[in-house]
């Protein structure tokens, strides 16, 4: 019931502020990885975020840039931060990703590293303590897929951390830039689906 309440609250909050165009019709929680790129958005300052576990879907706007990390904020004050497209923090989701390493993932995506690597993710406990989840990950370039007229490369990053196993998916364009992704936040939140515009 609690999760229903949160879901309803978040759903209501998001529905209240999200433009009609960005809502999924009927919006059943999607199981597969589906990102619809919003072509009407101005270049590179808008993005869409879905949280399948909560049935949430909202546009986010670029709020700040610190070095190579961009922070995007939704109208209901949830933020996500991406280091060159790799998720390094969320805020406002409750069970937030407080911080994460991205260098190894970026190196693997660029084909600069092979084999298993480590990904460190930081969380807060309910008792205000810091806790870490250290995952062992490996990257595989799976296939090329068509998005509209262009082709993108699909990469799957498979990670295991204690009782948790997750697969992050990144699609990169010809220049190696991440144009969309599905990335794991925490056991409670599950995945975020991020679609870059333009």
């Amino acid at each position, binding site marked *: *019931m*609690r*999760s229903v*309440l*949160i879901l309803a609250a978040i759903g209501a909050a998001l529905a209240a502020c999200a433009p009609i165009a960005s809502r999924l019709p009927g919006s059943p929680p999607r199981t597969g990885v589906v990102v619809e790129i919003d072509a009407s958005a101005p270049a590179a300052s808008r993005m869409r975020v879905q949280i399948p576990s909560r049935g949430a879907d909202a546009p986010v706007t670029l*709020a*700040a*840039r*610190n*070095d190579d*990390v961009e*922070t995007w*904020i939704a109208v*209901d*004050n*949830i*933020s996500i*931060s991406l*280091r060159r497209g790799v998720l*390094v*923090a969320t*805020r*406002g*989701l*409750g*069970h*937030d990703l*407080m*911080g*994460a*390493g991205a260098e190894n993932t970026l190196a693997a995506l660029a084909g600069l590293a092979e084999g298993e690597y480590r990904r*460190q*993710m*930081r*969380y*807060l*406990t*309910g*008792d*205000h*303590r*810091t806790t*870490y989840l250290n995952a062992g990950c490996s990257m595989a370039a799976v296939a090329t897929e068509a998005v509209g007229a262009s082709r993108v490369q699909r990469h799957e990053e498979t990670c295991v951390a204690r009782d948790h196993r997750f697969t992050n998916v990144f699609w990169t364009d010809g220049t190696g830039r991440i144009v969309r992704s599905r990335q794991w936040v*925490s056991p*409670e939140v599950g995945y975020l689906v991020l679609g870059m515009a333009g």
Partner: protein
Amino acid sequence: MGGKVRLGGGAAGIVSAGLICLAVASASPAAAQSRSYSWDYNSFGVPGLIDMPSALSRPDGELGLGVSSFADQTRTSLTFQISDRLSASFRYSFLYDLRSRPNPTGKIFPYIFDRSFSLHYRFLDEGRYRPAMAIGINDLLGTGIYGGEYVVATKTVTPQVRVSAGIGWGRLGTVNGFANPLAVISDGFRVRPTDRGPQGGTFEPDQWFRGNAALFGGIEWQATDRLRFVAEYSSDDYARESPTAFQRKSPLNFGVSYRYSDRTTLSARYLYGSEIGLQLTYALNPKQPRFGSGLDPAPPPILRRGAGAGLPEGSNLSRSLAAALAREGLALEGLDRQGQTLRAQIRNERYASEAQATGRAARILARLAPEDVGVFDIRLAANSMPVTSVVLRRSDLEDLEFHPVAPDLSRAAARIVDIRDRLPVVEGRYPVLSYGLEPYVLPSLFDPDAPLRLDLGVALYGRYEPRPGLIFSGRIHQKIAGNLNDTNRPSTSVLPRVRSEAYLYYKEGSTTIPELTAAWYMRPGKDLFARVTFGYLEPMFGGVSAELLWKPQNSRLALGAEVNYVQQRDFNQLFGFRDYKVATGHLSAYYDLGRGYTAQIDVGRYLAGDVGATVSLSREFNNGWKIGAFATKTNVSAAQFGEGSFDKGIRLTIPLDWVSGRPSRTRLSSDIRPVQRDGGARLGVSGRLYDTVREKQATRLDATWGRFWR
């Protein structure tokens, strides 16, 4: 036989809202039950089977609330898993048709309200072949109706099946009892003395583990994630209840439990061959709020110098900072620039965590400070009294914002010290006026005529601070509905009636002024904090109160002194006074025992003029939960004190943000006493220094520094 809950005026209003939220938040998808924890609470609120205990414990920190009923007997229990091994339960029970003695000659009471307190300690962990073992005492401080002790062993046979067996004394040694095996140690164990003190409420160690013993046992089968079946052989013959309240025909009990959610369990039992029993258990863990780290809005991102930080030319720094900080729930009280360092004195009005308030302030400073500022000195203040200075390098904030181990690195680079001096006051900050309306609830527990009474109403509160540290504040209560005024138990106290005439305060006047004071907060020296409060200090007393606290940063120990001269207020809680006057005060020592356990000892003179000491032990969680117990012994004899023999109770503090997920500094706090008498009563003045100061000091900031980045 009366008992009261006293609530600080400010906290009272939110109690009901909090409880409602707790109830609403109760259901959630089931999580797999761990093997090493007890699967449920028994009908006494002890980890166990149906009526019998088992040897395992509940998860550390869990708070279980249980209501169990059968055969005209209802037990309400509150159990706290104090540590991994030790749990304590407080029980309030209604028993009908009970005999005064466990034999047919006993007089039959139509009903009795009974309070009891028990402990359960697991002294041996389960091994591959070895069972877990626990020892327990079921009625430590009560009337002895539930008096019984046990040693029990539990073995997990398969992941779904557990078997328990134990030996019981007292009530738990009454079915097929045999001579006490402890008699080999001493003949004194052979016979159990029957008499307890006339006032109850005292320890009776000369009864524990005495008299006949008997064996009990049972088997539990966790059939599915949610469904559990239990069968037990009970060694309690219910001689005081059977056959007056019900017919006990068999020692065997059978039960089924359904775990509705990870917090709520429903149980049904067939008891003693004749009765159906039901139990509802609600268990929560302070370490596991529903909303994780909370639904607090995202903080403002840090802007780097040269990439957006700083203000446009000609902007007013202090005004811009004050406005930006106010959006984050922080008030800017003072501001000062010296060379590369920008100092800001901050009052946190929104966050339960001072580390989080510090982090938000740091972000704002990093966004708006001029580019040539390289160091921030953030000063955390309470009632305009500076407490702690946190010095941070701006470049650390810029570089660590998204670092995977940012809390460790940023804390290592931060300097946290005591700070005494106020910064130059920000123009336009003082005077500060705030006021508002809020609902309030005033409960009274354990009155024999009605175990729960309530008043509901509206409170108008106001606070005016004309200059830093000088604060006028007050509350007006308008009762809207309630039945506290139905209480009609004239005090029988032989002491000055400083608390036992509470019912007269409830009866007179529906518009009251529970609090109206002028207070002055100051820093007389390094590590020293002081307060003077004058006025109507609490609903029953007015006068003057002065306090001095010594609390160095990073110290386990703090010492305090408080002196008060007060006069009893009129029952209508307006401006008049009654004749009784008293000088009361205490010397206090506070000690942090580590791992969240704290101890406090107060020695001094109490409201009724009695002299003695209070010992308090608490477990605190970083998120603001606090669960503790206190006991006061003064030079008043048990007979003079009356029912309960001495003052004691449980103190419970629940942070509102834990319940709602929304940032809030409000905490719901209440003292639950089995009975409120006049001995060992303390003045209830607001603004005591220890808790206010400590939450802003280095030790607490260190433990919660992860929230700096939240």
